[in-house]
């Protein structure tokens, strides 16, 4: 996508130095003022608000703050600024629909709005979740690729490479990233979807070199696949991230910009995180010449980055509504779950994320995932993906009022244990791993949750 590639590269080392603490601590007082000026209010009873005027005001507040604040760059301690006219130049030149992938496996992204009956894209995978390397990793990826509602495959994180821990800036890190993407290519081929578009934040790549190394038509990321480039919370980036974006863009790989406005962090309450997130969406999209922004609000009380806190759901919803109502730039919803595979809670969490994303004009995923590490390996499965995908399809076209009712009911199911969920199980315990067939016990839980949602009015086919 045509971003402001040259302008970004020119401005990262221009202007006065701004100290990081000054940049960070000045966010909260200003977003507080903007929340009052634009009358942005969080309402816990409505994680999916039904207020078009507030969505439009949030977009305006985000635009004002993006122009005023800019994006701070760690390496230079300078701030990259864009004018409102430049931001609109980017947004107005963004053409959708967009088609991704190859041959019969192509998928098309159409612009959506809140309550839209246009089918969202569903991006299924588990970036952030630790997985056993090699054949088990391939099986994880096949498990996601074999779900028919999955439009694009996202990666997981190999826990080791060749039995070795993955150390940043090491040769093993580059080797691991190349292996990882090769395994995804193998998985989509073995699943009968060789042209399935890939959406990759290589789990082996804490630094830029391995991310750069995975662009390879033959066995890595192809032209038209996606690579992640994240912003730093809040409103910050660094050369490492910008290098990933420039490399991807100049090699014909789409950039997905990930942002993580934090509730309780520098921006304060949900209203502040929403304004910051809206500004970050604009600045990240432009600086990275992105094709999509993936929103991943986090809550400071949830250690593993789950997106299913009531307040994060609200932030997801209002940013999705603000952008889908005011421009054609697409927003995805990172789906990070607190619970693990094998539990009822993980299914309710997957369902609620789909309900919020789709009814608010967004696309679903990447997900389902969750930050795991240490011994917490392989605790993810395709059944959460199935819940995410089937619910995304079912909720398409639903009113926000009805979606909110369903979201609140889902919340009641898992909120009591959020932050301390029941222990889950590994893929190997929940599936016949050779044949990739889900075991009856896990499938029964899925059916039970789905039946309950259907009973509440979710129109599953």
């Amino acid at each position, binding site marked *: 996508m045509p971003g402001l590639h040259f302008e970004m590269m020119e401005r990262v080392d221009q202007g006065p130095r701004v100290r990081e603490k000054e940049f*960070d601590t000045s966010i909260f007082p200003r977003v507080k003022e903007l929340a009052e000026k634009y009358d942005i209010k969080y309402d816990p009873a409505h994680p999916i608000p039904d207020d078009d005027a507030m969505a439009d005001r949030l977009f305006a507040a985000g635009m004002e703050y993006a122009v005023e604040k800019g994006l701070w760059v760690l390496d230079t301690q300078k701030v990259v600024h864009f004018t409102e006219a430049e931001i609109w130049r980017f947004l107005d030149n963004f053409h959708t629909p967009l088609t991704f992938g190859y041959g019969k496996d192509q998928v098309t992204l159409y612009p959506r709005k809140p309550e839209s009956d246009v089918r969202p894209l569903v991006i299924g995978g588990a970036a952030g979740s630790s997985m056993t390397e090699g054949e088990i990793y391939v099986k994880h990826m096949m498990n996601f690729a074999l779900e028919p509602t999955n439009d694009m495959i996202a990666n997981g994180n190999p826990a080791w490479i060749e039995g070795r821990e*993955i150390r940043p800036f090491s040769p093993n890190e580059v080797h691991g990233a190349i292996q990882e993407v090769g395994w995804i290519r193998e998985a989509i081929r073995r699943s009968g979807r060789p042209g399935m578009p890939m959406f990759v934040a290589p789990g*082996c790549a804490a630094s830029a070199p391995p991310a750069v190394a995975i662009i390879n038509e033959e066995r890595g990321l192809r032209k038209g696949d996606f690579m992640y480039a994240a912003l730093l919370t809040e409103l910050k980036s660094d050369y490492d991230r910008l290098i990933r974006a420039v490399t991807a863009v100049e090699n014909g790989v789409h950039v997905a910009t990930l942002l993580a406005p934090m509730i309780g*962090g520098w921006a304060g309450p949900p209203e502040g995180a929403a304004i910051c997130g809206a500004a970050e969406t604009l600045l990240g999209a432009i600086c990275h010449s992105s094709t999509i922004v993936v929103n991943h609000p986090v809550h*400071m009380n949830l250690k*593993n*980055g789950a997106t299913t806190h009531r307040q994060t759901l609200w932030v997801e919803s209002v940013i999705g509504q603000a952008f889908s109502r005011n421009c054609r730039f697409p927003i995805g919803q990172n789906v990070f779950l607190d619970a693990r595979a094998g539990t009822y809670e993980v299914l309710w969490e997957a369902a609620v994320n789909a309900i919020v994303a789709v009814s608010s004009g967004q696309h679903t995923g990447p997900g389902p995932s969750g930050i795991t*590490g240490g011994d917490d390996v392989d605790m993810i499965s395709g059944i959460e993906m199935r819940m995410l995908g089937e619910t995304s399809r079912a909720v398409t076209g639903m009113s926000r009022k009805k979606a909110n009712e369903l979201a609140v009911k889902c919340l009641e199911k898992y909120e009591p244990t959020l932050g301390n969920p029941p222990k889950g199980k590994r893929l190997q315990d929940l599936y016949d791993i050779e044949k990739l067939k889900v075991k009856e016990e896990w499938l029964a839980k899925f059916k039970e949750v789905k039946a309950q949602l259907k009973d509440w009015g979710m129109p599953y086919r």
Partner: protein
Amino acid sequence: MNEKEILQQLYESVLQGDSAKAVEAAQQALDAKISPLKAIEGGMTPAIQEVGDRFGKGEMFLPEMVTSADAMEAALEILEPFFEGDEGAKKGKVLIGTVKGDIHDIGKNIVIALLKVNGFEVIDIGRDIASTDFVDKAVDLGVEVIGLSGLLTTSLPMMRDIIQILDDDGVRDQHKVIIGGGPTSQEYADEIGADGYGETAYSAVQLCNQLLGIAS
């Protein structure tokens, strides 16, 4: 201003994160012959406890806690030269940073603010810090606790490395090591021989108290 009013001013300035006002109130306390210990215990400590409580309830946020901690530090600088004996001594010295390859630092910043408001001296070594730098700095500064933070899965081996370097250098017994962040867990802390794992920012404070034998 009388003593009560000065202590109230100290309380309010710390609560509001107003460093200039806190410095002014600390000077007024000294001028009014209020002992530094009384100024701390009667004005600043209740304020910082209030900040901690409100932060825990989600009624105050990170930037407010940081500015409150700054205001308290600014006032302490004025009072410190007038302490007698070990009055006003810090609970202990903690070196904290995000390990090599990881530049996510919000979790670390929250822990730093909480440790400061709970009376620890904190040295923020920064982010993306080489393992050897953690060890060298800890030894140079004689810190009691080393706090290792990371959000990425790839941060875990760096935590193991740091403990190994402390062992190799023969200084492991001089420093307690605690870990925290997204991919860390009690199991991983046990596996690498860390002294503690903090699931939340608050538990990092409890851990430091516990490891240094301080009643919280």
